[in-house]
């Protein structure tokens, strides 16, 4: 398929997942943020924003600004509205390749973005709406797009972003350590019930962290997402290798995954932020490697040389 289209599909996967992850994090944290005294609210808002990979634009950064930055700012790829707009724009560019129902659901989601009240209460509803819409987009992608190369790029983007978002989410615990329970953290990931059924009610912090990092069956765990990404990469590049990997992206993803799987859980927990940083860096590097291998238009201007 066209490199440009593959790139669009990859980013549709990433942006939709980013909107979903951001909505989950915002939803759970808003409740606590809202109860804090104003001063504390501000510092926490800043830190939360930093975890999501953005920097506050003004000194007066508080709750309303956080809502704008993470939920409604269409110009920023960090916010939910920005991610969904970008996903829709990518789908518009790849419209003849994505299924029309996938395109339509992204398009109607885009038009629905403006119809929400931008205060705390409105944002709760907004977050829930986003979870529903992104679930619908995922469902339509899974059921109406052929599971060929185009779908693999979509899922590749989705799973890398998912590993990234879970890592960011786990990092927020450190920011909001005062009172941010593991129960809420699990809820953030939609993992609470699954966790309870797996581990029963008897759990400590360690078990919860393990679950989100390492559970091989829960789809939003980092290891699960990285394995998913690895499988897509394997299918996209079927040239069988008996020794090593020449594919940079596979090497990076595989290393990140095995590092987590073979590290002592105690050690992971004691240095959680560092390890989560490592996961995020791996995702960025893998994304760059994929872009170099599949999307790059390196010889774009080659003809200039030919003419002269």
């Amino acid at each position: 398929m066209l490199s440009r289209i593959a790139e669009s599909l990859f980013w549709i996967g990433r942006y939709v997942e980013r909107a979903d992850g951001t909505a989950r994090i915002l939803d759970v944290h808003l409740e606590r943020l809202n109860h804090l005294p104003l001063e504390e609210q501000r510092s926490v808002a800043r830190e939360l924003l930093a975890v999501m990979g953005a920097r506050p634009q003004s000194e007066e950064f508080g709750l309303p600004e956080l809502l704008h930055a993470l939920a409604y700012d269409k110009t920023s790829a960090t916010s939910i509205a920005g991610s969904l707009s970008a996903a829709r724009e990518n789908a518009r560019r790849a419209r003849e390749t994505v299924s029309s129902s996938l395109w339509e659901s992204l398009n109607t989601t885009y038009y629905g973005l403006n119809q929400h009240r931008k205060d705390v209460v409105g944002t709760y509803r907004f977050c829930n709406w986003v979870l529903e819409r992104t679930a619908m987009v995922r469902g339509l992608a899974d059921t109406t797009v052929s599971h060929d190369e185009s779908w693999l790029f979509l899922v590749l983007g989705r799973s890398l972003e998912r590993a990234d978002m879970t890592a960011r989410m786990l990092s927020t615990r450190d920011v909001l350590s005062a009172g941010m329970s593991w129960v809420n953290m699990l809820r953030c990931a939609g993992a609470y019930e699954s966790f309870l059924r797996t581990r029963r009610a008897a759990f400590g912090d360690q078990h919860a962290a393990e679950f989100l990092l390492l559970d091989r069956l829960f789809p939003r765990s980092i290891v699960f997402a990285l394995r998913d990404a690895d499988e897509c990469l394997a299918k996209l590049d079927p040239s069988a290798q008996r020794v090593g990997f020449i594919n940079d992206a596979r090497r990076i993803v595989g290393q990140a995954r095995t590092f987590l799987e073979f590290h002592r859980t105690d050690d992971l927990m004691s240095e959680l932020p560092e390890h989560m940083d490592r996961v995020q860096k791996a995702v960025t590097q893998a994304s760059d490697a994929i872009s170099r291998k599949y999307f790059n238009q390196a010889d774009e201007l080659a003809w200039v040389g030919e003419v002269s």
Partner: protein
Amino acid sequence: MSELFRDYSEAAARSGAYDEMFTPGAIARKSYGQVDGALRELSLADVSARAESMARTFLDRGVTFDYAGEERPFPLDIVPRVIPADEWDVLERGVAQRVRALEAFLDDVYGRMAVVADGVVPRALVTTSAHFHRAVHGFEPAGGVRVHVSGIDVVRDAAGTFRVLEDNVRVPSGVSYVLENRRAMAKGLPEAFGQQPIRPVEEYPRRLLSALRKTAPSGVDDPTVVVLTPGVFNSAYFEHTLLAGLMGVELVEGRDLICRGNRVYMRTTAGEQRVDVIYKRIDDEFLDPLQFRSDSMLGCPGLVNAARAGGVTIANAVGNGVADDKLVYSYVPDLIRYYLHEEPVIANVETFRLEEKEAREQVLDRLEELVVKPVDGSGGKGLVIGPDASREELDALRKRVLADPRGWIAQPVLQLSTVPTHAGDRFGPRHVDLRPFAVNDGDDVWVLPGGLTRVALKEGSLIVNSSQGGGSKDTWVLSDSPQVPAAEMPRSSITVREQVSVWPVESNWRDRQSDQQQ
């Protein structure tokens, strides 16, 4: 007559135009029987709700055009334009005839120029045309086709006679709305479909793909076809995606392509893949920076050479614009007689050639009664309607005509025919034109039954362009065969779908119940 048609016949009489639906005696024409019956059952609230839902669907589905950087749904009116079988027969023959003549003309002007040698047209007519490209002189296109796709604009004058208004054989757009309008109307006015045999339009993408494949460079067994778009900011981007999607081919931008050794390749995730046929939706001038505008980033350097060397087919062929020149248009009836030895099936609109002294003097005296058009304009650009223009505008026009008489033609103001159109609290007569689309595969010119009916949404306005507040209507061509074979029924129509799908669903349901009982 329903409340929705209150005062309709008075308004129609005032406009002095031919009304497609009603006779001057306010009786619905036979072809409109079913539509009339369906509309009579509707209240104003029904009509408004349906119109709103159709617009909403278009926005959700992205059936939009770009207006000043904003995506807008293309307004679709709920009253279709209906063309009876015998009238369509004339249009179909007339359009195909015109395409054949223009095809012969283009072949001639980029070759022997017999038409000049035989004195049918002056040499200067061809060589001074802005879109005559010497770069493709002597070039033989694969399959002998230059006009793969054409849109011949026709209108109906006050007497009810069809006339050709202009020819578009470069990059005619609008066919996507024909396809989408039919889908929307199946939901917007299902009552009117009934048992009426309306000829289907959905065949278009298949016909187009097959014509494009057929005109691939020789020696290519299984040609790769692509649609070339200027990109997402082009006002017709929706159409490009729709056509590529319905044909199941890649939609490429210039930067996806590379030319090497007079072959064209596209960049894919699996490396470079050869492209054999390019359905271009870019103007010639932007197609190839080596041949035309060197500042254009929309095309791909080397395309024209590759086409000239037979390494790739470009559809429509480069250089077709000379046939779109409105001064050339004035000669088309002569061209039909010259190349085909036939009389024109559809007449032109009376046209003054302003480079001829006598005609020019006459026109300059009567500017306020005429329409004056630039010969190389499209989309209504630069056109001046005398009766609507101010004194200053006419003076400015006079200067421009005198400065460049070759650049202008003049025509009488035509009272384009009207069709009832939803306007606020009732239906009012609104002027329409019609763009039938034809696909030429080298052996046969196929005319899509219907075409795009554009409608001026403002009362009295004759400007139907979407960029100037126009909308569209679904165009229904009736079939005169009493029984339409099932395969030819509009599959997108709700009525039809229900007929075929109800039974299997039910029987399936029974099966499942019995499964469970076991």
